[in-house]
């Protein structure tokens, strides 16, 4: 146990020696006031699983940014279809991983390593943007519904019910059909359009109890406007649950994006996309396992890392609740 904690300290912290061996024991060292965020950050840094997954996430982001380097090093373009015998078999089947194509090739003789690296871009762009947009919409609506109450709240609460009772994947693919065309931003907007309701419901619940607190009344008696109370006084108090929720949302958005692409209603080709690649690989998985494995493992690694990290963040912000996974 002690060994584990020291390892964790070593992993997250450069050389700082903590005398506390058991996190459950009170800290007998110098007592100084620290903000809840500093405390949460500290707990997170001591969480070995979360820190390892953070490095994995950073690595994936680096791969996404450095995708052109993969293309340069291998000398293979992302959309270039290679026709040589080292790329496609005489029958036109994908070629297994080799010294030329490290991850093998797909059915059109394209380099899977380069395509997988580029695919990280779509996943991360959509995952991060959709999560941010969902949070902005959800938190804003939750704040207004919770603060004003009355008919605004009733209306929004019903709307939230409706959105949560429709299977979103079904409606999402239907919406793409109605819109007639797809782009990166439409995919992001669709994920946010169905995601905000869950966020709004949680934030609304928090705001309803916060708005009755003394500091809100104090602000009101000082003559603060509603807008000021909502965004200056109440908002900082719901940041922690919002951050926790967004860690759940991010891997979910990455999965949704991949699912939409898999069903053929995601980012249109030729942009390399993991969901799209897996969908294409469906016809070839029997002869060419690497075609499925390259994007599949990349996608799994991404969601896994985000989930483990998110679990650590939840634990750091609220150590009382049981973690979803670790420990």
């Amino acid at each position, binding site marked *: 146990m002690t060994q584990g904690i020291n390892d964790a300290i070593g992993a997250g912290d450069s050389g700082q020696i903590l005398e506390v061996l058991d996190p459950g024991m009170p800290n007998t060292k110098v007592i100084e006031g620290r903000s809840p965020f500093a405390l949460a950050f500290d707990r997170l840094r001591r969480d070995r699983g979360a820190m390892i997954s953070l490095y994995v996430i950073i690595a994936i982001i680096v791969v996404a940014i450095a995708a052109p380097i993969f293309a340069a090093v291998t000398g293979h373009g992302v959309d270039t279809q290679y026709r040589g015998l080292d790329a496609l078999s005489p029958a036109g089947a994908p070629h297994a991983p080799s010294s030329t194509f490290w991850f093998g090739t797909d059915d059109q003789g394209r380099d899977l390593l380069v395509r997988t690296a580029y695919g990280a871009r779509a996943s991360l762009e959509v995952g991060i943007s959709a999560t941010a947009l969902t949070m902005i919409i959800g938190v804003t609506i939750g704040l207004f519904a919770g603060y004003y109450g009355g008919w605004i709240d009733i209306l929004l609460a019903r709307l939230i019910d*409706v959105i949560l*009772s429709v299977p979103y994947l079904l409606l999402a693919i239907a919406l793409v059909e109605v819109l007639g065309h797809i782009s990166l931003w439409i995919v992001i907007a669709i994920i946010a359009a169905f995601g905000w309701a869950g966020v709004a419901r949680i934030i609304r619940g928090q705001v309803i109890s916060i708005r009755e607190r003394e500091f809100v009344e104090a602000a009101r008696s000082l003559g603060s406007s509603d807008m000021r109370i909502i965004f200056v006084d109440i908002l900082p108090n719901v940041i922690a649950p919002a951050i926790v929720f967004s860690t759940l949302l991010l891997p979910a958005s990455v999965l949704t994006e991949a699912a939409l692409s898999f069903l053929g209603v995601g980012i249109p080709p030729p942009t390399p996309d993991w969901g799209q690649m897996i*969908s294409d690989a*469906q016809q070839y998985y029997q002869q060419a396992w690497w075609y499925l494995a390259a994007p599949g493992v990349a996608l799994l690694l991404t969601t896994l890392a985000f989930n483990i990290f998110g679990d650590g963040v939840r634990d750091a912000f609220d150590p009382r609740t049981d973690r979803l996974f670790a420990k």
Partner: protein
Amino acid sequence: MTRFLIRRVFQGLIVMFLVTLIVYLLFYLGDPHDIARRLAGRQATPDQVQAEYVKLGLNRPLFSQYGHFLWRLLHGDLGANFVNGVKVTTVVKAAAPITLSLGLGASVIWLVLGVSTGIYSSIHPRSVADRTFTALALFFYSIPVFVLGLSLLYLFFYQLTVHGHAWFPASNYVGLTDDPFQWARHLILPWITLALISAAAYTRLSRTSMLEVLGEDYIRTARAKGLSERRVIFRHALRSALTPVVTQFGIDVGVVLGGAILTESVFGLPGLGYEAVHAINDQNLPLIIGIVIIAAGAVILANIVVDMMYAVLDPRVRL
């Protein structure tokens, strides 16, 4: 109980009404002329397109169209396909048993799997088994449905078949009444796919919930009475520990329908999700609207049932 039920059903109907309104408006905000043009065929004259437009009732005001749609819906009629004129209800009747078989079978597996591993973990916290279940839960929680499905197909269909054991088929569906054995054989891989993905959350949920309940006073009382540990866990603790599990299950009915789209697509099962994806490729709006409405109805109904389950499971709950 009756009053609660009436209020709950009434609320459900309001949500259902809003769903139909929003879905209908959303879809008809697309260009209806475009639909008429497509149906009239490539060489149609503008007159023919206009005739098709009138035939579909698209020339009437939107509210009149919606009213007509709602009226038919109340009579169990979801309209006819744009593409071949087959009634939507006919398509749904053929597809629904498949999705139902998939969803019901998978939920039985994941509930048993999730709750039993959760209980085991809560009785032996921090044991090797507990940690293994945790790691597996995290893994299956993160893996995309279609990646798991295709991996299972590769291992259990392709590799086994190549080595002379054609135990599992790759696709298709056989009706339960036609041949129960073939029905199960064709569904086992889809069941496992959907179940493993969903079981993960239940393992954690039932573990947490069980640990909490096992710390309560009435459990100590039950033990003090000299009841066997088995009886304490299964008769006393499990009942109230299941409440959050049931809540999650109600929420997951909608998620299952989403997961069913992907599972059906991977395993070639012509269920509701599969039909919906194909309807989108055919730009077949009535079928999509019909499936969305049926799915929403299923979720709303499931949530009412879940609310009533609370009272059955936990004697302290009064509705």
